[in-house]
Structure formats: C-alpha cells, structure tokens
C-alpha cells in the first residue's frame, strides 16, 4: 500500500521534473507545497507510531514533540525541522529573493524523503488527519 507521504513526494518530484501540466516557472514552488504536506504527514505518522497523538496541533508543536520523542541528537528530528523551515521559506514570496531553484528544492525533497524513510513503518499509516493540500498563501497559487 502506498502511503499518503509517498504519494505526495512522488507528485512533488513529478512537478519539479516538469512532467506534469504545471508551468515550468511555478514547478519548484508547487513542489514545495506538496513536499510540505508530505513532511506533515511523515512527522504525524512517526509520532502516531510512537504513541504520541498530535491531534490538530500545529506543525511547530509536532516538530518539537518529534525532537522530544527522538532525543536531542536525532538526525531525523533535525532534518525534519530544517526541511520544514526551508520549505516554508520557499513557499513564500520574498522581497529580494528569487524563487527557489530546482536544485534547492531537490535538496529539500531529499530531506523530506530521508525523514519519511527513517520513520516509515508500514503498520502506522494513520496520517489522514495531517494531510491537507492547501498552499501556504491561498491566492498566490499559480
């Protein structure tokens, strides 16, 4: 069975590679939105697998809970946090920064995949409540 995270990551990769109908200029940013949703799902799935119910809490709380549960030196928790920061940053329009490049988004996707693969456990696919495909800024969508 393919999990929601897998599906979202696959879509992000396709959008980034330009193999979808998404105009190339918007590919990297759209891939970031998808990857953000994938990361949300992966983190919630991991927390659920460890017996931490995160309800409707916000992503910051979930990332903090993940660090607390995995230990302060956990590479996964750290990668999850920095990927979240990177993706959130890339999802917004900035005054003096260009949109993220394909290579930058590729790195962020690799981080999300790393988090997902280290946390994936087939029995815990309880990630439905976490996944919503909303862009960060409705209205800014291409």
């Amino acid at each position, binding site marked *: 069975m393919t999990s929601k995270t897998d599906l979202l990551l696959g879509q992000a990769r396709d959008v980034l590679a330009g193999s979808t109908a998404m105009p190339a200029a918007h590919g990297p940013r759209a891939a970031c939105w998808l990857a953000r949703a994938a990361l949300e799902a992966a983190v919630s799935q991991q*927390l659920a697998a460890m017996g*931490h*119910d*995160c*309800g*409707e*809490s*916000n992503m*910051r*709380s979930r990332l*903090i*809970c993940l*660090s*607390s*549960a995995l230990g*302060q030196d956990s590479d996964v*928790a*750290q990668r999850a*946090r*920095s990927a979240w*920061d*990177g993706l959130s940053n890339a999802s917004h329009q900035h005054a003096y920064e260009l949109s993220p*490049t394909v*290579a*930058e988004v590729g790195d962020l996707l690799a981080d999300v995949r790393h988090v997902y693969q280290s946390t994936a456990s087939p029995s815990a696919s309880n990630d439905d409540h976490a996944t919503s495909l909303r862009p960060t800024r409705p209205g800014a969508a291409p």
Partner: protein
Amino acid sequence: MKFALNWLKANDTIIKNERIRVVADHARRIWSDLRQESNVDLGDLKLQGTNTRRTVEITATVDGEDAGALSVMSQGELHALALALFLPRATMVEPLPFRRARRPSSGHGPLEGGRSHQGARRDRQVIVFSHDDRLADAARRGPGDARILEVTRGSGSSIKIDNLSDPASRYLADARAICSDDKLPEDTLRRALPNLLRLAAESAAREAFFSAQYASGQSPADVGDTWNSAAKTGHRVSLSIFGDVRPLDVWLDKRPHRKRGLGVCTSAAHVKLNGDPQEAVEDVRRLVDDIRVSRKG
C-alpha cells in the same frame, strides 16, 4: 651536507606537495558540500616556485573541461573556495581548540555557511562574526547548540554584548510553544514537556559550568570528561553551582521553584508530567535563571 642540500632543493616541491595533498583532499570534500549548483569541480592544489616567488596553483574543471579555477568563478564560488581551503589548513596543526572565521559573505547562502562549519564543530568551537542576520536566523530556528551574541558598538567604541539566543532559551521557547498550542492533546504535551525542560536546565548548567571552568584555566578535555561523568540532571546542576557533585538539598530548599523545577526535569522525564504544565515551565525558567547567575548563591 652539500649533497643533502641539493637533494632537498631538487625535491622540495615534491615534498611540499605531498604534505599539501591532505589539504587538497579535505578541501575537495568541503567544496562538494558548498558548491551547490556550481559546475566547477576542484582539482589538485600545487605549490610552485622557489624562494620569494611562491604560489599555489589551483586546478579546476567546468563541466569536465579544464579551466583556470579563479578566472571562471563567481564571487560566491570564490568565497566558498576560500573557506574550503582555509578550513583544512586551519585544523591541521592548530593547537587552539577554537576557530574564528569572518562572516559568511553575502554571495554565500546562510545555510551553506552553517553547514560548512558543522563538520568542524564536532571537535572545535566555531565562532562566526557576521553583519548578516541570515546565519543567526538559521541557527535560531534550526536545531543545534549555537549561541548567538549581539555586539553593539556605541560612541567611543564602547562595546555592549547581549545574549540573544542560547540553547536553554530555545528549549524554553519550545516548551512555551507547545503549552500554548491548545490543539495539542494534553497527554502528548505531558510526555514531551519534561524532556524539553530537562534539556533547558542541562544546557544552562553546561554553559555555566564550562565557562567557569575555562575561566579558571581547566583544560577543555578535563572539563568535558567531568561533565560527561555526571550523567544525572541533579549532578549537572550541582557542577554548575558548586563546580563539583554534591548534595543539593540546601541550595534547592532556599527557593521552592528550584526543587519543583528540578523535580520536573528529573523524575518527570521518565513518566508523564503531573502538575500544571505552565507552572512547570515557569519553575524551570526560574531554575535556569538561578543556574545562570548564581555560583554558590
């Protein structure tokens, strides 16, 4: 003697280049971390020339084609290259356990700057001076044990240094953040909170203990060993207050929040938090303040 001197002259460059090869290998590794999307591949480093005319030759290829490295590189690439060459050389025979680098420059992403120092951070203290808030921002939001100080230079060059962010404050901020998220189920909150608060108290204790020991001239290795051999939070707090491990009862009894705060950090980390979460955070915050200011207080 003359023969030896001649041999040395003839083989001087070869010997030097053997020594520099280590640097070149290390530099290539750092370059591959920093290069991001650059098409430039770093080749060999060679020392050339004799007496007062000595240069370093850096070879590089662009998309597999030979190119003189420096002439084809952008400003950001040059900065990354400078860092790639500086780091291995600085760590080769340097006796000091810390390193100072100038700010990661404007043509150089903040995260690259952070990453390049990360490898060195394992066995060195890294100090970065910067006018650019982006690296500080990455450190503030990201995980890790970075401490951010703000240096303000007033009139007459009077210097004021403020502590903007350190690990203990970030753990406390994390603790407050999950407390104020009312959509986080209480059970999860009660499990996560004690860990964060324990880390807050321990990082404050570590900071206080290490700076006091360094100031009194202890060697970093000894200080590290003493710290690591005190595994319990109470022992670590004791190190920060008294410089050694001893019963804390008298110190704890002086202020009620100390005992409650340490209780949250020690016992609660193994089970769930029992009391009021907000009060637990407040108790540990005051405990952290006490650790920071009081030596034998």
